[in-house]
Structure formats: C-alpha cells, structure tokens
C-alpha cells in the first residue's frame, strides 16, 4: 500500500459516456480524509453516475480514480473483497435484501468477508443496529415491515458492517420527513466522529448540506464547477450554482438556518 495520502478519494480527468452522450466530462475531484463532502447537481446531471463510477459499478471511459489509496481498476479486477472492507454504500432505496431479516442483512458483509463466530456476529450486528438508533428487537423484522426511515437506518448499519473508511451515501434523507431527516443528519455526524469516517454524500437536502457537510461540490455540465465550504458556494457566481442556492426554495431554507 502506498503511504496514506491526505485524500480518501482522488478523481482525475474522469470521463464517463454512454454511447455518444458524455455524462462526466474531464472531472477532477478530491475528497479529504475524514471530511463529509456533499455533492449537488441537477437531477439527471450525473451525480449518481459519478458516485457509481467511483465505486466501480459503472465503467469509466477514461481517467483515473483512486479510492483509499488504491486504483479502482485494481480493486475491481484483483480483489473485490478488499473493496468491501474499504467502503460502505447506502443506496437511495436502501437496497436491503428482502428475503433476509434486518439482522441477517447487517451480518451479510461480515459473513461473506470475515471469519468470525455466529455469536460475535450477532453481537456486532446488534451493536451496529443500536448505533444507528434501532432496537435489538428490530433485528428479526423483514425489510418489507420497515418504514422508510428505518430502512435507511438498517441500510446504514449494513454499510457500516465492516467498519469501512469511506461511506458513500446516495440521497440519504430523500423521502424522509424533516424530523427524521434531521435525526439522520445528526446520526451521520455522530457516526462520522465515532468511526472516523470519510463521507461522500449525494444530496439535494439543503439542510443536510448546511449542517452536515464540511465541503460541498457542485456538479454541472459534467464538471465540478464549484467546491468548498457552504459559504464559498453561496458566494460563487457560476450561473447554475447561483440558481441552485439562490432560488426561492433555497433562500427560505438558508435564511432560516443562518
């Protein structure tokens, strides 16, 4: 392994295109170790594509991606199990395995990647469930019996099962009521501090961006057009960023929170 660099994720000159359509166009982005980075962008503008490319679900056309000091191409071809311990991913809809109970869902990455006794696996799974604010009794439920907020929490517990260094969140608060969304934001901050995570978060939730994120990156036209703390983005004069943060809806949210 190379010397641990300052960056958890390092993306350089990335191009992703489907057929003739270029979604990500020469994009470069660095995520620092231990920070929470929020990614904003227009719907259908390639936010999810960028995230899925970084974790290797979508093939890049060209460019270079480094996650946790490892080249993504190497991880994918040589050692997919190493990747599992490297990152945890919270999908937008949770993507819980519907035929497994909550506890089995959380245990699944451990069972597949690590050798440990069933007893310890049970204890750690329950520990994770409690850390995300669920009760041990929720462990025996099936995903179809969970509410939206609980599904996200279980998915977060599963993403954290192997104590990854990097956590990817795809719209973690979408579909949650403001109270649950606020709680979820607080949970992410607590876990980030407790476990020393680097968090890469795709979101539209201005409250999350404001309260949780150390830095915010704006994706427009396939490039990162602005990156920095929330304040610097508010001051940015890129037309799309301006429209995003100074639209009527955003103004109300930001006015209230500042």
């Amino acid at each position, binding site marked *: *392994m190379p010397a641990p660099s300052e960056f958890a994720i390092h993306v350089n000159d990335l191009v992703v295109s489907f057929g003739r359509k270029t979604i990500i166009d020469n994009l470069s982005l660095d995520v620092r170790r231990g920070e929470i980075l929020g990614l904003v962008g227009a719907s259908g503008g390639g936010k999810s594509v960028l995230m899925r490319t970084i974790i290797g679900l979508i093939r890049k056309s060209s460019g270079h991606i480094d996650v946790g000091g490892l080249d993504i191409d190497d991880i994918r071809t040589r050692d997919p199990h190493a990747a599992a311990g490297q990152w945890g991913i919270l999908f937008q809809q949770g993507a819980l395995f*519907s035929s497994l109970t909550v506890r089995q869902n959380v245990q699944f990455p*451990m069972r597949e990647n690590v050798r440990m006794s069933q007893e310890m696996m049970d*204890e750690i799974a329950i*520990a994770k469930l*409690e850390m995300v604010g669920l009760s*041990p009794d929720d462990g025996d439920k*099936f995903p179809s019996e969970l509410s939206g907020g609980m599904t996200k929490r279980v998915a977060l517990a599963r993403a954290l099962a192997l104590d990854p260094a990097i956590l990817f969140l795809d719209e973690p608060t979408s579909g949650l009521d403001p109270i649950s969304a606020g709680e979820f934001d607080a949970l992410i901050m607590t876990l980030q501090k407790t476990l020393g995570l680097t968090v890469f978060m795709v979101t539209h939730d201005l409250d999350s961006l404001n309260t949780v994120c150390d830095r915010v990156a704006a994706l427009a036209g396939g490039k990162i057009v602005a990156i920095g703390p929330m304040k610097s983005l508010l001051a940015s004069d890129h037309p799309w960023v301006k429209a995003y943060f100074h639209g009527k809806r955003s103004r109300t949210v930001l006015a209230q929170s500042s």
Partner: protein
Amino acid sequence: MVAAVPSLDTIAAGDALTLRPAGDWTVTHAHDLEALAEPVRPQLKAAKSVVVDFNALRSLDTAGAWSLEKMSRLSAAGEIAAISDIPERYRELMAELRQVNRQKPSASGASGAISARLESIGRAVFSAKDDAAAFLQVLGELGVALFDIIRHPRSLRLTSTVYQLYKVGWQAIPIMALITFLIGAIIAQQGIFHFRKFGAESYVVDMVGILVLREIGVLIVAIMVAGRSGSAYTAEIGSMKMREEIDALSTMGLDPVEVLILPRVMALVIALPILAFIGAMAALYGGGLVAWLYGGMSPAIFIARLHEAVSVTHFEVGMIKAPFMALVIGIIATSEGMRVRGSAESLGRQTTTSVVKSIFLVIVLDGLFAVFFASIGM
C-alpha cells in the same frame, strides 16, 4: 502498512486487571480477537474491575472495541473501570459501545422439534382453509364483475382482454401445437409397437382418437397454459401488488378485479378451448403421420377408421372441460398474485404455488369430469 496481528497482555494488580491490547483490533482479525478473549475469561471473572491500556494498540474499530467491552463486562464491575492512554479518535467509539447490547432481544417462537412440527402442520391446515377462502372470494368477485359487465357492456376492458388473448392464445399456438403433435406421435408409435404383438395395429387409431380428443389434448394444453400463462399472471399481478400499483388503482375508484383479473381470466377462458382444439388436431396429425410412416397405414385409411372410432361426443367431452380448467387456472394464478407481499422471495414463492396448485387442480378437475361423464353416459 502491514496488518499487525492483534495480541493481548494482561497485568493483574490486586483486584484490578489491566488489559493491554496491541496490534490491529479490527474486524478483519475478528477470529483472532475471539481466540484472544477465550483464555482470559477466568482472570476476568475473578477480577473486580478492568482497566484498559491503549498504549500499544495500533488501530481499533467496532469489532475490536466490542471485544474489549465484552471482556470487561465479565468482571465484577461489569464495565470498564478505567481507560488509559486512549487516543482521542477512539474515545467516542468506546463510549458508544458501552451503551450497546445491554438488553437481550426478546426470545421468539416455541422451541423444540416436535412443537415446531406441530406448529407447521397447524399452519398448513389453516393456510389450506385460507386458500379455499381466497379461491371462492376471487370466484365471487369475478362473478360480481361479470354481472356488472353484463349490465353495462361498455365497461368491459376490451383492449386489455384482446391483448391478453393475444398473449395467452395467439402467441401460445406454436409451442402448444408442437408439444401436442409430439405427444400424439409418441402415443401412436407406442400403440403400434405394442398392439403389433396382437395384430391389433388398426386399433391404434381408436386409441389415439379417443385419448387425444377426450383427455390428453385438453389436459396437456391446460398444464402447459398453467405453466406458461398462469405463472406470468401471478408474477405480473404480484409485482404490481409489490409496487403498490394495485392500491393506486383502488384509490382511483377502479376495481382491480374488473381492470386486471377479469380480462385475464376471460382471455384464458376463451383461449384454452381454442388451444385445446388446435392441440387435439395437432396430436391427431402427429398420430396419423406416425401411423403412416411407422405403421404403414395410409392417411386415407387412418381418416376412415378415425371416422368410425370417434364420435362427436368424445370431442364434446374434451371441449366442455376446457373453459372450466381455464377458469381454475385463471383464478389460482390471479389470486396467488394478489397474495404477494413485499419481498422478492414472496413473489417467487407465490408464482411456484400458483403453477403447482393450478396443475394439481386441473388434474383433479379432469378426474371429477371423468366420473361425471361416465355417470351420465357420455
């Protein structure tokens, strides 16, 4: 950075036991962590309090922190009494894990093999009752929907019905014809082969004719339809149920039975007799071809003997059964679809149940019809 195998030193000082973990206490080494905890158990149980010294530790995650926490819970104090030299970054994690696993999840379900067996038998009995009730309910709902359609013919979903008819009828013709053709050919070949011993080859025509028109034609086609279209109905309606599309329909004031189930069942009831007819013809054709090529019976003789051997009654018996079998398949398939619950597994289970149950019921129904026709002398 090479991974360092975790190790554990213990220093006993009076009633207090100091744990000095070293190396990487991470989930990758979970197995080693468990092995390390085992020999220390007696010492921990004897100790009044536990002190954890983080001085030599290189890295720690939830699994490692939980191992330490679990060990310290064995002591008389039941928790870590003191922590020394903890790096700032692990302080929160240790604090967090003090809270977890404090309450045991409530035990659920009865224990013991016999009671589990009894429970599953009991559940099976009740689910059989539920099955019968669900079948009758859908049958009733279909009847109500049909009555509505007769009163207001315009409310019939004609497009949907025709589309379903195209899918379960027209598109099924090639495979149905091929299979029944082969079955007819096989029956004829076997018949000729064995009847030859008695010099009774010409009776093969009687056998093929009666068997195909009365029983095999419709039965094979019904089983094929159950497997081909019944499973599709269950999967379609089941996934609509999963995605709340059926609930959406109801909230718009539409009756799912009228919109989804009736067109499908009607299409089956229309398609199955037609398919059974085509199947019977294909089987006779296959039988005739084999009789000609393998048995040396010319087509003209085959047709003449067929004319003598079978009467319209045989054909009627076969055709009368077809719509009833279609109704059973349609009701089972759609009602199983409506019983799908949230998970992908449930969809798979209901689809399997649908096919198995409809094939079983089709054969039972065929038996009942045989008894019925025998007693009325048809």
